[in-house]
């Protein structure tokens, strides 16, 4: 049949094309290749890849785009036969996890002129495994057209997001999905205390429109006007603005500036090229790239800010950015998975129940305003307490035995852990669901009295 | 709806076209109440189209179709109350036999008890009472045919239409089924029209038939009349084996006489009004004998040679070369009769009383 031979010819040319693709380029002093697993968007990675390849023409940089969580998973799954050289992402805790698994190797930066701290956060890993190359802080971004159309005020601080006026207009990612979101959650918990911090998060979450699966889902939703306000890391807000979207961004008072990091993977096949990439990142040339409007990250070299546009925030001068909380890295690390799980159980997976309870409370409070009714006030307070309640106290959360349920790694067959995560979560879920339902009933009861 | 007694079907100047292709041209027919009527013709003659037009399928025809006194020309199929049995039987494979038969009654919103009674009666009628819960695929071809019949007659249609009802059955079953259908038709006293391409089927079953070709009715009449006195060459040829000689007619002494180019001549019993035409005579009306053995009065002898002999059981068929023609002669076979061998010189005897003249 002549059409089948035609098919064969087409396929043949594909195979030929494949062979050509596989042909290797020439080599130089460094290795000829560098494989970087990164969570950063193409706007950022593309600029660095291009500049680095221009400086070292013999090296071909492969940017392997994975979401932070998937990147960690990827490195873990592939560790037995590693092909990646570097991990390049925002969240320091993702690096902590990899460090804990022995998947990173130490590196000593040769470049000078980089301070120890950005905001209240140490720029580099004290153990020397991963290096900060840019600062970033969490804040609130909003869509100007959206808040104008819905007649909403522009927010200034976290507590604003809990106001009834924003009900159904806020978006955020889940800490289990996004390392940087985790930091924001943890920052508020550390800044306000465990109980109060969670209560505030749940008051805000009661206004959520959605919990996005990816951290980029939040700026994406605000940019398209799907929801009006979002809890995002600064460069999402700033780069969206720079791309022309009608959005604005603000740093609230309680935030922390955290470094975005890079590390060399253990057993990296191209260690020399990896070292050169880190040095390039820390150099004046590399740091200046961060000022690009599509990238918009805070350089870790104070000398770069002279070249920045006028309105560019400078954390080394403006001490109000990110200095309010002294971030406790060890505390954060110990309860990392537990906080993630708690957030998901209380907020992500029970968003509908939480929203309904919050709406009922907001309605009751609106009805109460200007009147005095002690009984109604008592019911509302009780409802609020139920919504805010956390199934575990801080001491338990920090108890290494309890936290182990959430991060157990049975290295040996003899290792034993008591309790199963699914069991604990099911218990929490039962409690949380009942609390939200009760709170809703109480608030409705209070409203009916008014 | 139920009219008392059988109804007539009248077809008045019906034309049907598929796009630009004419399928039926100027068809007019009157089918009597209770009559068993056949549409006979080769494939593509339009016989199925005509049947389908009566049922309401296919393009809306020009002209009129009347069932009883009702003009149904533009009525959709489901409002005609005309029962049709399809060539493929079209039994629904997803329903049991019983459900198939009950379908039409359900569509007519008959009460459940009544449906049960009538379905039982219909299955009884076709001898399939035991098979109600089977699926069509579990039945033989003949049984499927009976289900299709039962399904159609159970709704008591005004007219029964059968599209090639026997074509999917094997020879033995066909003969049996032929009688069964006839018996059923008599019992129900239903005006019935059936389509076939097999003249034997038409001959044995129908009271009258219409022969169609190229979308035009060639002749209408009782089977024997059509066979013996075909109106044209097509009918003559289609209804059975025919010897046809073309030539000219001349009137001599008040009688017509036929003559063809090769010199064959014969007298014709009546006066032919046209000059050129043909004569037709069927093989079984001829005689064959040795040359010069004498003839009965009036028989026209045609000398020739036996080209080949076929033994067909009850008859022996000779192909005899007469001049440039080959004339087929059927001699009935009786044990011990002499059979002429190939190349034997013979004389074929034609009885002018059995010769049909046809216009060109």
């Amino acid at each position, binding site marked *: 049949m002549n*059409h089948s031979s*035609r*098919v064969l010819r087409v*396929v043949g040319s594909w195979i030929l*094309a494949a062979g050509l*693709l596989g042909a290797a380029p020439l080599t130089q002093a460094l290795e000829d290749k560098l494989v970087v697993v990164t969570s950063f*968007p*193409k*706007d*950022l990675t593309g600029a660095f890849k291009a500049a680095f390849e221009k400086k070292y023409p013999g090296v071909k940089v*492969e940017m*392997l*785009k994975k979401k932070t969580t998937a990147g*960690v998973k*990827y490195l873990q*799954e*592939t560790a037995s036969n590693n092909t990646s050289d570097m991990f390049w992402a925002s969240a320091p805790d*993702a690096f902590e996890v990899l460090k*804990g698994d022995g998947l990173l190797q130490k590196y000593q930066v040769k470049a000078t002129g980089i301070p120890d701290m950005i905001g209240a956060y140490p720029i580099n890993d004290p153990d020397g495994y991963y290096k900060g190359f840019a600062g970033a802080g969490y804040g609130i971004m909003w*869509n100007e*057209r959206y808040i104008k159309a819905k007649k909403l005020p522009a927010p200034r601080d976290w507590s604003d997001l809990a106001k009834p006026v924003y009900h159904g207009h806020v978006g955020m990612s889940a800490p*289990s999905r996004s*390392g940087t979101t985790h930091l924001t959650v943890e920052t508020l918990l550390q800044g306000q205390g465990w109980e109060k911090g969670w209560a505030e998060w749940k008051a805000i979450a009661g206004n959520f429109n959605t919990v996005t699966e990816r951290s980029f*889902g939040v700026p*994406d939703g605000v*940019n*398209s006007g*799907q929801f009006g306000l979002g809890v995002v890391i600064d460069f*999402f807000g700033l*780069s969206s603005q720079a791309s022309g979207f*009608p959005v604005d961004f603000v740093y609230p008072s309680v935030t922390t500036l955290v470094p975005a990091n890079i590390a060399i993977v253990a057993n990296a096949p191209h260690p020399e090229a990896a070292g050169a990439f880190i040095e390039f990142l820390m150099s004046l040339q590399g740091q200046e790239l961060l000022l690009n409007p599509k990238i918009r990250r805070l350089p870790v070299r104070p000398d770069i800010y002279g070249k920045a546009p006028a309105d560019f925030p400078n954390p080394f001068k403006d001490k109000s950015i990110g200095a309010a909380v002294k971030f406790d890295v060890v505390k954060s690390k110990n309860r*990392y*998975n537990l906080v*993630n799980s708690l957030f998901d159980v209380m907020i*992500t*997976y029970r968003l509908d129940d939480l929203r309904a309870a919050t709406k009922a409370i907001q309605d009751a409070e609106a009805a109460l305003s200007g009147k005095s009714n002690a009984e109604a006030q008592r019911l509302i307070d009780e409802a609020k307490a139920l919504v805010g309640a956390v199934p575990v106290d801080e001491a338990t959360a920090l108890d290494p035995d309890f936290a182990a349920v*959430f991060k157990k790694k*049975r290295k040996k*067959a003899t290792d*034993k*852990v008591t309790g*199963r995560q*699914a069991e604990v*979560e099911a218990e929490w*879920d039962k409690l949380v669901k009942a609390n939200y339902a009760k709170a809703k009933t109480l608030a409705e009861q209070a409203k009916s009295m008014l | 709806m139920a009219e008392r007694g059988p109804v007539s079907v009248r077809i008045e100047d019906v034309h049907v076209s598929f796009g630009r292709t004419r399928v039926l041209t100027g068809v007019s027919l009157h089918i009597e109440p209770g009559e068993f009527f056949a549409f006979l013709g080769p494939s593509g003659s339009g016989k199925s189209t005509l049947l389908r037009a009566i049922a*309401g399928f296919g393009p809306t025809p020009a002209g009129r179709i009347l069932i009883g006194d009702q003009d149904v020309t533009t009525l*959709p*199929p*489901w*409002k005609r109350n005309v029962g*049709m049995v*399809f060539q*493929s*039987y*079209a039994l*629904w*494979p*997803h329903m049991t036999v019983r459900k198939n038969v009950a379908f039409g009654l359900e569509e*007519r919103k008959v009460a459940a008890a009544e449906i049960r009674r009538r379905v039982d009666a219909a299955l009884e009628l076709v001898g399939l009472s035991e098979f109600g819960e089977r699926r069509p695929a579990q039945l033989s071809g003949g049984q499927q045919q009976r289900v299709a019949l039962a399904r*159609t007659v159970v709704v008591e249609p005004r007219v029964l239409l059968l599209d090639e009802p026997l074509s999917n059955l094997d020879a033995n079953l066909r003969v049996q089924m032929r009688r069964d259908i006839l018996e059923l038709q008599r019992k129900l006293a239903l005006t019935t029209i059936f389509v076939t391409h097999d003249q034997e089927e038409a001959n044995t079953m129908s009271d009258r038939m219409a022969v169609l070709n190229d979308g035009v009715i060639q002749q209408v009449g009782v089977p024997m009349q059509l066979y013996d006195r075909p109106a044209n060459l097509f009918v003559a040829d289609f209804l059975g084996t025919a010897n046809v000689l073309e030539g000219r007619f001349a009137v001599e002494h008040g009688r017509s006489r036929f003559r063809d180019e090769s010199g064959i001549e014969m007298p014709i019993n009546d006066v032919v009004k046209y000059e050129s035409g043909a004569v037709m005579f069927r093989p079984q009306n001829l005689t064959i004998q040795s040359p010069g053995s004498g003839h009965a009065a009036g028989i026209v002898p045609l000398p020739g040679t036996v080209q080949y002999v076929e033994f067909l059981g009850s008859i022996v068929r000779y192909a005899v070369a007469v001049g440039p023609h080959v004339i087929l002669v059927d001699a009935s076979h009786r044990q011990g009769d002499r059979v002429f061998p190939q190349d034997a010189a013979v004389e074929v005897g034609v009885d002018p009383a059995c010769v049909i003249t046809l216009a060109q």
Partner: protein
Amino acid sequence: MTTFARTPFGPAGVAILLGVFLLVFLVIPVAKVVFVAFQDPNTGAPTLVNFVDFFNTSLFRESFFNSLYVALMSVVVASVIAMPLAYFTTRFNFNGAILIQTLGVIPLIMPPFVGAVAMQLLFGTNGSINLLLDEWFGINIPFMEGLNGVILVESIHYFPFILINLSAALNNIDRAMEESAQNLGASGLRLFRRIVFPLAMPGYVAGASLVFLKVFDDLGTPLLLNVNNMLAPQAYLRISSIGISDPMGYVISVILVLFSLFALWTSFLAMRGKEYATVQKGGGGLMKRDLRVWEKAGAYAVVIFTLLIVLSPHIGLTLLSFGTIWSFSVLPDAYTLANYQEVIGTTSEYITNTMLYAGLAALIDVVFGTAIAYLVWRTGLVGRQWLDYLATGALAIPGVVLGIGYLRTFYDVEVPFLDKPLASWWVIIVVALAVRRLPYALRACVAALQQVAVALEEAAENLGATKFRTVKRVVVPLMSGGIIAGFITSFATAAVELSATIMLVSAESDAPLSYGIYVFMQSAAGRGPGAALGMIAVIIVGVATYLSHRVIERGKRERALEAALAGGV
């Protein structure tokens, strides 16, 4: 049944090779993933305690019912879209039928997550439609809220499965079936409900069960719409969370696989013994009738309205790719070609990779599909049905599970000469795609084989051809239409697959188009270029599909011509 006395090893050898392939690339990787579900997380001992936990957790029960609800509702909505389209194309003579056949399958060739982005912009709470509705009537319809959004996106994406299968089934119905019912007084909807639809049921069930399975397992769409409380997202979220080694993700995977297999089995049972549409004699296909003018207008209105809805992802994507900024407005602020200019330089590698991967995967699929179809339907090998079950079982494996399974199984396997793990060699992506699409190609090949009369084979063998030469010279050429149809389905759907590939891409230079789009879509400035890349993907796959169609049609015409010539001599 033909005997294999002359070539006792051949077919068995092929069967064993195919069995080994499926074992290594389907069974073992999946087993590697699911076995965690049967381990006690504390001791590592085999246990079912994780399944007890699953059913004790209200969130999981809820997720299970949500997944079930979404899958069933998607089947309902997809049927509502597909049924009128299938009915119009098979029942009436009008040009809209060609429109449906051409445009109706396009939704399949768009990566679902890209569709979700576009749908959100058009139908979201503050999407174009709702902004207009709000302006005109002051109302807001929650098309995209929660499960609604998933149902809408999934039905629009997968309804072609029903359309294709149902149209084929309707075309196979003997028209006398319909006429005899009319003759007995049935018409209109009753006729459709009582006769036409039940007869088309096998085709409908085949399509609907595919939709059900795909939706039940689909991950990308709920994730993109931020719907978490469904099974597939729950499995994915748990498997891919940092540092969590919770077995629940794997438990959910097992439940997904088991339930999908159950659904597959149910549809198999439902269809058994009902493949009757094709065995009837007589005129094939429903009666086609011409439409009156007002009917034609009505039919066009229905068709155009439906096509507008099903092509809305493409409309949205087109706007996005040519738009500058599209934010809380009915349409983009302005239009530009910049997005295309930006991607044009970077696409060639993605395109080459996509063509290579999808092309090779589809080629593997039709070769294996033909072989399995032949072994199962034309030989008497013991256990041959298992090849069919195994290959079809791939339908029930979520892409993520397969992806993780491959990483687990093949990371320690070195490719000879290349000095890299098999799991990071691009060929593994091809294998994953081939395994995932094999069921489609297999169905097409089985259908094609069933239309080749055994007598044709016997005639070739009688004339001295060996089994293999018979297959090569007689069977395969006669099956070529079906084989190419299988190739197209595999190719087009593999070209837009993301769920398995995203786990397996280990170098940007190995990445296919859908991965490229995904990467672009992760930044504010990349949305336009990502959409442009998406449009390029749709056009390329569309053109490739169209060209293959032409090849089939040409082949058919050539064969018809040859037959006519042979008949003339």
